[in-house]
C-alpha cells in the first residue's frame, strides 16, 4: 500500500469518526457497535465513554502482550467490552489491573522497602550502611584479646603455704639485710592494721639531715645611716653656753 492510499484511507476514517461522534449515542448502542464494528472504532468509543480508563487500559495491554509483532494499533485494541460495574468505582480497575500484572504480597511492608540498600556513592569512602553492632562495640571498647587456655584450676581459699627457705648467696643478692617474711595466719587482723603496727613497732632509721644554706648577699654601703636631727651633736663647752641655748628656745 502506497503512502497516498494510506493517507486517503486515514482521512476517510477520520471523517467517519467525526460524523459518528457528532450524532446521539447510547451506552448499549455503543457497546453493540463496538462489538460489531472494526476494532479501531471500539477503542475510540471507549475513550470517549470512560474518561479516565483509556490510558490505563492501553498501557496494560502493551505490558501483557509485549513484542506481539503486530504492526498497526488497530489490531492491538481488540479487547473485550468493559463491564458496567467498572464505571461504578474508580478504584477497582487499579486493583484488577495490578492483579493481572503482578500478584500482591500477602501482608506487611513491601519487600522492596525492606531489602533496598542504598548503594554507596562513588565519592564516599565509607559505606552508607551502618556498622554492625559488634563492630561499633569493638571500636568503642576495644577488641577483647582471647584469653589463653587455663590448664590449672584456680587457687583455693585458705592458708597459703609458707615460702621455702631461701638459699641465696648472701654476698651476691644482698638478701642478708632484708627482714624475714612472717607467714600470715588466719587469725591475724586485717592487712591495713598489720601495716600500721609494723610502722609503729619498727624503729625508724635515723635520717641524716643536711641543711640547705641560703645566705643573703648584702653589699656594703656607706649611705645606710641617715641622721634626722642633730640634737645630740650639740655639745656646749660651758654651762652658760648650754643655758644660753636653752634660753634661746
Amino acid at each position, binding site marked *: 500500500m502506497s503512502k497516498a492510499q494510506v493517507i486517503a484511507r486515514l482521512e476517510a476514517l477520520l471523517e467517519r469518526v467525526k460524523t459518528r461522534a457528532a450524532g446521539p449515542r447510547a451506552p448499549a448502542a455503543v457497546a453493540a457497535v463496538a462489538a460489531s464494528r472494526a476494532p479501531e472504532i471500539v477503542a475510540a468509543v471507549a475513550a470517549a465513554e470512560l474518561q479516565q480508563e483509556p490510558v490505563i487500559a492501553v498501557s496494560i495491554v502493551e505490558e501483557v502482550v509485549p513484542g506481539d509483532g503486530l504492526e498497526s494499533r488497530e489490531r492491538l485494541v481488540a479487547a473485550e467490552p468493559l463491564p458496567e460495574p467498572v464505571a461504578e468505582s474508580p478504584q477497582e480497575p487499579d486493583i484488577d489491573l495490578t492483579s493481572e500484572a503482578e500478584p500482591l504480597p500477602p501482608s506487611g511492608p513491601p519487600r522492596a522497602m525492606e531489602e533496598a540498600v542504598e548503594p554507596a556513592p562513588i565519592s564516599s569512602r565509607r559505606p552508607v550502611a551502618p556498622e554492625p553492632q559488634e563492630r561499633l562495640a569493638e571500636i568503642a571498647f576495644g577488641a577483647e584479646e582471647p584469653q589463653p587456655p587455663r590448664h590449672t584450676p584456680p587457687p583455693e581459699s585458705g592458708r597459703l603455704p609458707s615460702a621455702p627457705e631461701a638459699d641465696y648467696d648472701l654476698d651476691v643478692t644482698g638478701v642478708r639485710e632484708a627482714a624475714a617474711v612472717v607467714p600470715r595466719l588466719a587469725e591475724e587482723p586485717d592487712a591495713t592494721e598489720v601495716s600500721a603496727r609494723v610502722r609503729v613497732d619498727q624503729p625508724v632509721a635515723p635520717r641524716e639531715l643536711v641543711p640547705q644554706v641560703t645566705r643573703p648577699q648584702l653589699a656594703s654601703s656607706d649611705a645606710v645611716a641617715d641622721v634626722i636631727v642633730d*640634737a645630740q651633736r650639740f655639745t656646749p663647752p660651758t*654651762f*652658760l653656753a648650754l*643655758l644660753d641655748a*636653752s*634660753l*634661746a*628656745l
Partner: protein
Amino acid sequence: MFDPTHAVRFDLPSGSVLAGNEGDRVLLVPTAALDDLVLSAPPEAVESLGRALGSGIGRRAALRMGDAQSASIEQFVTQLAGEAAIAGVGALGIERWGKALVVTVEDSPLVGTLLAPLVASAVEAASGRRAWCTLLSRDERLARILIGSERAVARVREWIASGLAWGEALAKLHGGGA
C-alpha cells in the same frame, strides 16, 4: 670637785647656823612647816619663797666656781648640786634634751610649786642670767624642771596643760614633733 669642808657651821653658844665661806645665816626649818606654808600661801608668795631659797644656793655655788662664765657643765653642776645638797633640797642634776636644759632633783622634800622657782633662782644666781622655769614632771623620786626663756616656758606650760606629754612638748619646742 665639790669640797664640803666647813660648808655649814653651827655656832652653838650663839645659837646660829652659818652656811658658806661668807657665813650666811641659815635656819633649819622642818619641811612640814614649809608644806603648810605652801598650801596656805598664794602662788606668788610661794614663788618668792622658792626664789629666795634658790638664790642663796646659787650664789654660794658661784663663789665656789670663781669664774662661772668659763665653768664647764660638769663643774657648774657639781658646785650647784653640792650647795643644794647642803641646803637639803635634794640631789640635783641636769639633762640635755636637745638644746633644752632640764634640771633634775631627786628625793627632794619640797613640793613642786616651791622647787621650780628655787631651781630657777639658783641657776640664775650662779650664772648671772635671767632664767625662767616650769615643772615638767614630778613623782615620788624625781622632779624635772625646764630652764628656758619666758616665752618658751609659757608655751610648754600650755602644751602640757592641753594634755601633751612633756617629752613631746620638748620636741615641739625644738620645732618638731606633734
